[in-house]
Structures are given as structure tokens and as C-alpha cells.
């Protein structure tokens, strides 16, 4: 029996679902190994369950909690995909702004209004997390294969620098930029440094992230503490380690 898979999206840019659709080379082969039971972005006939694996994108607004709980109930394995689902995503930044609802909606009361956004794990048990803004599609496929093999998927426990060093990029820390590679979990093949752009930490903190040492280093390099803190608050400002980062 092929495992039943559901792909769901909540609050976000749909980039992680899109990355799945961007698997052009294998998209049409996927049905030979899984039954895609629910994928509203790509499919019009969808069932609620039962699901062996559900991949859930997006952060959760209060009025979406019920729907999320339903998915949880219907799924054996629930996987948070993308930094929105894992950490609240970029929209978590509204928490650092005064009166965001006033700025955007002029404080109007609205039917679906809910100025509050959280990660999946704030509401339900999450079995695995595939962070990234967006997810790395290769990592997604690796994950899927692991589950299909019955192999416990292993999250990477080393930072971006590992991938970056293997590509022999000129280290951006040396250039005096704030590269969060040393404290960010690997898995994207150091895409940003490969493009000569410092890691923005979109995948969230790595296990044992040594944030205080990096902050110390940045201070030595003359980085303005305000800039450093802002850097920690890009796509995973909901991550505890990044939020607590002090300059």
C-alpha cells in the first residue's frame, strides 16, 4: 500500500508548496510511490484523510487552529515545512512592530482578522521540521525517501558553513558582513553564500548554535549591535535562540 500524503498550506507565500511543484523531473513519478490525497494548490479532488504523512506549510492564525488540529488528527506523521510552519516565518515580525493592524487595516474589524501568527508546534505535535524559506526541494525529496524506506529521517545537526566551505566560497564574515552561516542549520547547500550573499538564517538555528560567540565576533568586527539583532530577525524571528540573541 502506498502511503497517503497530504500537502497543506496556511499563512505564508506558498513557496514551500511551490518548491514541491518545482520538482518537475519527478513530479509525475510521485504517484508511483505515494497517494497524494490532499493538495489543494494543485488538485481539485481532495480528501481529509486518513493520511500517513502530511506536509504543512505556513504559520497559524487563531482561526486556522481548528483546521490544523483536524489535519493532525488525520495524520500519522505531521511535518512542518518551511520556516513559517517551523517558526512563524517572516510574518512573525509583526510582533516587533507597534500597532501593525492599524498600519495596514486602519484598525478595521474584519471577518477573518487575527493579528497573531504562530508556528505549528504552538498548537499541535509536530513530528519533523523541514525549515527554510523556502524549503530545499532536494532535502524534501530526501526526507520523503527516508520515510518511504522506513528510515528515521535525520535532521542535519551542523551549520551552513559546512556546506559553504566545501564549495570554497570566500567567507563573507571576512568581508565584514553578518553571515549567519555558523549558527544556521545546514540543508540548503549554502545557497546564499554561493551567491556571494551572506546567510540570513532563514533555516533557523542549528543544534548547539553558539550565538554568543558569533555575536562577540561581530562586535569585534565593528558591526552595529542593532544591525546584528535585525539580522537575527528576518525569517525565523520566532526561533527562541534567535530572539534571545543579544548583541
Amino acid at each position, binding site marked *: 500500500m502506498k502511503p497517503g500524503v497530504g500537502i497543506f498550506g496556511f499563512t505564508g507565500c506558498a513557496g514551500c508548496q511551490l518548491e514541491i511543484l518545482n520538482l*518537475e*523531473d519527478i513530479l509525475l513519478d510521485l504517484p508511483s510511490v505515494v497517494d497524494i490525497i490532499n493538495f489543494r494548490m494543485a488538485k481539485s479532488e*481532495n480528501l481529509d484523510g486518513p493520511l500517513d504523512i502530511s506536509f504543512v506549510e505556513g504559520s497559524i*492564525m487563531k482561526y486556522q487552529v481548528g483546521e490544523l488540529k483536524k489535519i493532525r488528527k488525520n495524520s500519522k506523521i505531521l511535518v512542518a515545512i518551511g520556516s513559517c510552519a517551523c517558526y512563524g516565518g517572516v510574518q512573525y515580525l509583526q510582533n516587533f512592530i507597534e500597532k501593525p493592524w492599524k498600519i*495596514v487595516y*486602519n484598525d478595521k474589524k474584519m*471577518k477573518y482578522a*487575527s493579528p497573531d501568527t504562530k508556528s505549528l508546534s504552538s498548537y499541535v505535535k509536530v513530528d519533523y521540521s523541514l525549515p527554510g524559506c523556502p524549503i530545499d526541494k532536494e532535502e524534501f525529496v530526501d526526507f520523503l525517501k527516508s520515510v518511504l524506506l522506513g528510515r528515521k529521517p535525520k535532521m542535519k545537526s551542523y551549520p551552513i558553513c559546512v556546506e559553504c566551505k566545501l564549495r570554497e566560497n570566500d567567507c563573507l564574515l571576512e568581508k565584514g558582513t553578518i553571515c549567519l552561516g555558523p549558527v544556521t542549520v545546514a540543508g540548503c547547500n549554502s545557497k546564499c553564500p554561493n551567491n556571494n550573499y551572506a546567510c540570513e538564517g532563514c533555516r533557523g538555528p542549528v543544534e548547539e548554535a553558539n550565538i554568543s560567540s558569533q555575536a562577540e565576533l561581530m562586535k569585534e568586527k565593528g558591526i552595529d549591535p542593532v544591525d546584528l539583532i535585525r539580522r537575527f530577525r528576518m*525569517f525565523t524571528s520566532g526561533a527562541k535562540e534567535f530572539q534571545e540573541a543579544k548583541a
Partner: protein
Amino acid sequence: MNIDIHHVTRVEGHGNLVVDVKNKKIKVEFQINEGTRLFEAFLRNRRYDEVTHLASRICAICSMSHTMSSLKSIENAMGIMVSEQTEKLRELAILGEHIQSHALHMYCLSLPDYFGFDSIISMSNKYLDEAKNGLMIKKLGNEIAETVAGRAVHQISAVVNGFTKIPSKEQMNKVLRHLKELRPSVLKTVELFSSLDYPDFERKTEYIALKKDDEYALYDGNIASSDGWNADVREWEGYATEQIVEYSNAKQGIRNGHGYMTGPLARINLNFDRLSGSTKDTMKEYGIRFPSYNPFHSNVARSIEVLHCFDTAINIIENNSFKKEKNECRIKVGDGYGANEAPRGTLYYHYKIDRKGIVTYANILTPTAQNLRNLEEDVNLFLKKILDSSKEKIIHNLEMLVRAYDPCISCSVH
């Protein structure tokens, strides 16, 4: 009669189409219940060189357009003139995005309706060649974006005043080769989409798109309307306003109290004479004529745009060589405006930047938000036409109409 299409499928994001028919009076609400993200709030207090990567997260499918409009608006505010090479590369990147997004829409989201399937995957059982064609075109769109800007979804290397990395000659040649190899599939696409059996429905509305004198405007241009006016991007907020409606987390674009249309159909209706020569030849060959007032013909417009994008991209790569350039810039206080044609229509950014380079104000008009009112107006009229059909058929037809707009809901609720 009451129709509540809860969570319309095969569109990006969460929206319910709710229609209430009482005594021949039709009330239409496209309720966008996508979670609110409040970009215009949290982009404030961020530095000019951070906001673009944040802004691109408004939408994955058209992240490239958000990147470009955001950058243009910052550059406009700080008085930066980018190099010609940067313009060319950006244009190329935008072409890639249009190819990707249109292919995604046409083949994955729309075509299954016309072939009677629920998705590209089930469709591929019977129409494998078409499905593969579509995916290969889409893949190439992504390849262009990745080559030029570092990643297909949420670009990396496109920054204020240039790029952090310039694609190598080998990479460019590879893209060029793929464009040429795949062009015949695009011709097939035009043939296919111009021959589909579209619902018979017309409603003339105001069409708005960027316009340029000498070329089919995608990356740049003035804002122009089928009503005849033409304005600098700076003046846009004077022409159109956004309205907050209580049932929808997306605001709606309004002009003079009515909706207007932006997107592929609007562009072709306004600018078809500026399409590339070979594209025009192909249109002639297949007997495709514009303007059209049938929103379902957006699909035909998309297929034509893909061909135009292919030819323009080939032209850019063949006639330019790219080298490393400096992209430093100086912070300046200012108000900046930027717009470009996203796959779904005109995208507009307005930033205010203070003397420390911090953004103090952000206003973003996305194509889908602008189209929402017009979409409701179309649904209203279309429904009158098909009111005698079975409810099931009505629902299916309405969904198809919504899809014809290819709404990008996360864009609309940004």
C-alpha cells in the same frame, strides 16, 4: 440560491467564493481568508538593503516581481541609476518568472479543467506529452530565474543597484541552448491554448498595464489604461485606490468606483502591437486576435506571452555579455516608486526611506488585490448567463472563472 465554494482549489492561497442569489439580485463575495501578514507594517523599521528579501516572501510564484519592484522603489527613493547590464539581467529574470508562472498556471492549474481532470498528475495519464511539455517549460523558467538571481523562489543575488553574483558565460549559454530546444514546445502551447473551448462570456472593463513606446512592457514602463490615460508610476496612487472590505483580508483595487483588470489579458489588449515580431507572426498563423473581452482568454494571452518571453530572452542572452560590476550605493532620504508587470499584472511599490536608510513607510499594490473587484464583477455577470445550469456546473464554471485570473492570494494579503 446560495453558493459557497469553500477554499477554491488549484489557486495559490485560501479564498472562498460566496454567492447569494435572491430575486435575481446577485451578491458576490470573494472572501480571502488567507492569514494576514502585515508586510506593510513590518517592512517599516527595516534597512533599505533588507526589505527586498523580506518583501519577496509576499509571494513565492511572483517573488521575482516583488524583488524587482521593491528594488526599483528603493533605487528611486535613493536616486540610484542602475547600469544597463543590471537592467538587462533583471529583465531576463522577469522573463523567467513569467515563463515559470504562466506554465504553472496553464498546465498545472488550468488545463486539467479543460481536459476534464482534477490535476496535472491525473491528466498526465492521458495527456502525458502535454503535461511534460508544461513542466519542462516551467522548469526552464525556474532555471532562468535561478541562473540570474540565485534561486527560483525567493531570489538571492538581486540587490540594490545590481547583483552580488553575475552568471557565467557557460551558465548563460546553457540557458540559451535550453530556450532554443524548448521553443517548439512553446509553439505547441500556443496552438493548444488558442484552440481550447473557452466559455462564451464577454465583459468589457478597464484594462491597465505598464506601457512603453518601443517594447512590450514587463520590467518597466508607464502605467496606462484602455480608457486612454497614461501616467508616470509616481502618480499611480492618484489613479487607483485600495478599499478595505470586511469579508476579505485582501484589499480591493478600485478606480472611479469600479473594478479594473490587470494581467496578461490587459497587457495583450493594450500592448499586442509591441510583442516580438516572431510572436506576432505566430499569432497570425494561428488566427489569434486581440483585444478580447473574455476573461477566459487570459490563458491564450499567457501562452502568447510565454512565446514572447522566450524570444526576448534569447535576444537578451545572444546580444549581451555580462561581467562583474560594483553595486555599492549611498543612502539618501527619499520617496521611491517602483512597478513592473508581474505575471498576474501590475505590481507597485512605494517606500519612504530616511537618512539612515531605514524604511519608514511601505505601500504595496499587488495585481491580485487590484483584480479582486473586477473578478467579483465578472462573476456577477457570468452567473446571470449560466444561472439555468445545474448547481454543480455553476460551481465548476465559477471556479474556472476564478482560475482564469490565476489569483495569487498570498500576494493579495500581504
